[in-house]
């Protein structure tokens, strides 16, 4: 009797497990842990806090998946970001790395080396900043929908300027793919009637360097006496602009907004220089990127549009066509948080 009971239970279990297997085969893949694959996380350059946060997220996923292979975090030094990224991409292919996770700072110049890597069997997963043409890229893990960043920035501008006024953009480098896409999305959003009284007067570039951004911000104020807002979609630029406005006592006249890290922005948000800004979680971005790259490199994911998988604690994600770059594929992470005086202190901890 007892024996029968156990065998019944076993049969039930087997049936149950069969159905469990049957369902994901049609829709969603549970990634098998423990497979060995070496992977490289390649940021724009080393030494910026957000990229280290992404690395932490990738390390978390690496441990969780029990990958006996190696997770390398390598990047160029800031002064040769473009050449350094191409070199690391090339080296990774010759080393036979399973995947390279790239935050691209080299525009389409990275394409030949990325394609060579793919030919050598290395999967190329971009995150944070994609390859503009999509060539040489398996899939892009987008932090948020690039179009919706544009709307959020336009909305922040609308609320800070109280509906009307002049704003200018202070971006990173002129060829940063992500910032350019966000600015384009914001310009598109500004066409809507709601924002009719907001005038975008200029777009300047601070090269993601504190001193350049600081001087550019002041030059904007001098150039446009009626400027009400500087929108900076980069963590370096928003901080430098806020400091510049605070130093020159201009915070009452010119506000700052954009994308920033709560820990770096908390004082400027509380004193009113930068009343509102937004960002997503870079740890989550690194975590999701790792899951995606692991799935592709171990052959558990093919990278086709419509394919779904579960990325650990973050839940289910689907590969889809990137609306911003037709013909390319992306995984959309989202959402992001808008910070203001109410929630910035808690987030800065």
């Amino acid at each position, binding site marked *: 009797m007892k024996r029968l009971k156990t065998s019944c239970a076993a049969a039930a279990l087997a049936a149950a497990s069969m159905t469990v297997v049957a369902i994901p085969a049609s829709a969603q893949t549970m990634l098998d842990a423990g497979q060995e694959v070496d992977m490289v996380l390649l940021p724009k350059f080393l030494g910026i*806090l957000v990229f280290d946060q992404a690395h932490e997220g990738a390390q978390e996923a690496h441990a969780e998946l029990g990958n006996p292979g190696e997770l390398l975090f390598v990047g160029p030094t*800031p002064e040769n970001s473009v050449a350094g990224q191409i070199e690391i991409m090339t080296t990774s292919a010759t080393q036979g790395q399973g995947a390279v996770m790239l935050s691209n700072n080299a525009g389409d110049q990275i394409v030949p080396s990325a394609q060579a890597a793919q030919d050598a069997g290395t999967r190329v997963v971009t995150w944070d900043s994609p390859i503009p043409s999509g060539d040489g890229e398996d899939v892009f893990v987008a932090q948020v929908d690039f179009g919706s960043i544009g709307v959020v920035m336009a909305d922040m501008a609308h609320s800070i300027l109280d509906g009307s006024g002049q704003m200018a953009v202070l971006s990173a480098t002129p060829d940063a793919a992500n910032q350019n896409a966000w600015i384009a999305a914001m310009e598109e959003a500004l066409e809507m009637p709601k924002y009719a009284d907001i005038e975008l007067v200029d777009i300047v*570039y601070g090269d993601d*360097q*504190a001193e350049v951004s600081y*001087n550019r911000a002041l030059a904007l104020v001098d150039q446009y006496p009626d400027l009400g807002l500087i929108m900076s979609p980069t963590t370096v630029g928003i901080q*430098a602009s806020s400091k510049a406005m605070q130093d020159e006592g201009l915070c009452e006249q010119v506000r700052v907004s954009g994308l920033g890290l709560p820990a770096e922005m908390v004082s400027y948000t509380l004193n009113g220089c930068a009343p509102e800004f937004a960002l997503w979680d870079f740890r989550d971005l690194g975590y999701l990127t790792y899951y995606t790259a692991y799935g592709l490199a171990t052959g558990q994911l093919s990278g086709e549009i419509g394919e779904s998988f579960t990325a650990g604690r973050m839940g289910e994600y689907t590969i889809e066509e990137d609306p911003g770059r037709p013909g390319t594929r992306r995984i959309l992470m989202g959402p992001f948080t808008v910070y203001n005086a109410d929630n910035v202190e808690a987030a800065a901890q």
Partner: protein
Amino acid sequence: MMRVLSNLNPQTLRILALLLVLTLVILFFSTQISNYLNGRLFNRISSSVAIMALIATAQTLVILTRNIDLSVGSIVGFTAFATGSLIAAFPNMNPLLLVAFSMLVGAGFGAFNGFFVAYARVPAIIVTLATMALFRSLLVEFADGKSITSSLLPQWLTSFPNTPLFEIGQFQFRAAFVVAIVIVFAVHIALQRLRVARRLYAVGSNPEAAEMAGINLKATVFVAFVCSGALAGLAGFMFLARFGNITVVAGLGFELKSVAAAVVGGVNIFGGSGTVLGALIGAILVDLIETSLVRWQLVSEFWREAVLGALILTAVALDAIVMRRLIALRAARHHEKREQKMEGTG
């Protein structure tokens, strides 16, 4: 007019010529950019040039000895970060001790460069090209992905650079600018008056002769690098105070800007001649052109560097041609005078 000019010493002449170019540039941009000529322009340029003035001075000390320092940007970045970490860890530290720390760190890097250039006899351009990357990588390693933010720094430090010491009309003389100017003038006077400092010129203009005269070439070059490093360290301190937010890209590109400032300021790239006062005006000129180009709508972002490069080239070429003319004119007049004298005696 020509007579007056040709009787001035070439150093003074050069500084006058630079001031003339500076005025012309300001006049040109005032016709191109609205709201240009006002006190704000002075305040902007003076606060931003305070840092570059020190770096250009540091660069000049080394160039005078027929060398170059391409690692100044990395030294500035590293000292800014290290000084920021130190004051964040010990917020009650004595300000003078903090300044001493940053100069010491800079001097240490300078000594490293100086050792290889002076004693191992490796060309300075190679040594400092290597240490530019080396010091920057050290910073990346040391920073470990963290950045210094102004919230970590004490109030006195971040408010120091912008504290107006005195005002003349719309012109504010802020602490950082005044300190930088005082230091540049002190170095200038030392270089013109002190026997020890004159050795830099001797070594740069004719090393063989300098050695014959009993000057220790190696020690002189070594000391030039150490002093230059200390000044770059001080610039790192000023950088930290002004910007507050320090990442690993801090000071990137300063090496080229400082060389440009020195060369535009009339410091001979082959050593032996030039003044730090000239380098200061060179730094002001480069900064002014850069700031104005940002506001000049005619030039797009992508062409700005090119226009800046072309302007620097023009400035240097013009300066060289005019100086050569004047020197020739002077020589001719001397010759004339001598002939008159000969005729008189004969």
